[in-house]
């Protein structure tokens, strides 16, 4: 899927305030947001600041979406647990999945595509972290993007908590 199509799906679902910290996996989406006069995008200095900005935008009547790499998820844990979850402030978190765990068969093979060392621990832990704090999430694949974005809107409005969509490399062109 092209970055433009991805962004259009998010906008069509009602997300109207964007903030975050770039990752190469969603680099093109952020470049588009920077130029798009329809949708506000605030480049954040850190991922938990983005979560805070999004929370303020929600209080102000917006439907926020935060973009980040999974390396920034750890930065956000206190904001998610002691702000979003207790005040019931929803946000869609689009979390790029660096250090995506290779499938067992691939892991054994010589040519297994491993990410840089700094991503491997969080790559294995990031979805478990979501389980630990009780945040719903889904893994994006080329086939489920539209449905997953739809699901995120249903979840955020029903449960009024953040949800994460994990985005591995290869889903966006």
């Amino acid at each position, binding site marked *: 899927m092209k970055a433009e199509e991805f962004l259009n799906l998010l906008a069509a679902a009602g997300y*109207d*305030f964007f*903030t975050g910290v770039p990752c190469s996996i969603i680099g093109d989406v952020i470049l588009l947001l920077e130029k798009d*006069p*329809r*949708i*506000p995008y*605030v*480049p*954040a*200095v*850190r991922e*938990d*600041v983005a*979560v*805070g*900005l*999004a*929370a*303020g*935008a*929600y*209080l*102000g*009547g*917006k439907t*926020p979406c935060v973009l980040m790499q999974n390396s920034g998820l750890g930065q956000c844990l*206190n*904001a998610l*647990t*002691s*702000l979003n979850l*207790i*005040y*019931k*402030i929803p946000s869609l978190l689009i979390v790029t999945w660096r250090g995506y765990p290779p499938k067992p068969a691939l892991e054994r093979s010589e040519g297994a595509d491993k990410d840089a060392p700094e991503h491997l621990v969080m790559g294995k832990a990031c979805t478990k972290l979501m389980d630990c704090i009780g945040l719903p999430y889904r893994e994006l694949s080329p086939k489920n993007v539209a449905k997953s974005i739809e699901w995120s809107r249903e979840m955020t409005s029903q449960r009024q908590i953040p949800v994460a969509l994990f985005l591995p490399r290869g889903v966006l062109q």
Partner: protein
Amino acid sequence: MKTTAVLKTIMETLKEELVVAANGRVSREAFALKDRPQNFYMIGSMGLASSIALGLALTQPQRKVVILDGDGNVLMNLGGLPQIGERLPPNLVHIVIDNETYGSTGSQATISRKIPLEKIALASGYPVVEKVTEEKDFKLALERCLEKKGPSFLLVKVEAEEGPEGLPRVSHSPVVIRDRFMETIRRGVLQYAPTLLPSPATGATNAKTF
């Protein structure tokens, strides 16, 4: 200057402004002095009051938003200052009550004893920066910061005092704090008419003011 006296002046001066109050003593004092639906007491997420308030100020450009912050909070999210300076919301007032300690955990020192937060605010792009050390100067400085086109930054140097044990905790649940805060925003009170931004009356959306 005492923290309670400073916050009392602030709470008596405010009208319909939205307030985001940092965790710890600041929230507890604000709650004890004048609980109002326009107060968002941030009981956790230390450091993020300025960022929550920025998101709010950008999406509610017709309302004045006041951050009641502390030195420990500002230092924990120092990036929050240039984050505000980059967007320059004219409707944002950032008040920092600086007692140079982590007051709620037993008055351990912060580094603001040596580090001038007002200079960081100035370098971060706040067009209005004031520092007050004498109580007699505070009210006028506060009024200037509330009236001028912001974002404005008001650093108030206060005495370090005993912890807030005597102060009640905020008794509303977080969800109640959220609900009444959002309700007061939905009701809407126009208290700030930005001259350089599109007026809501022209049908322009908030997003265009970014």
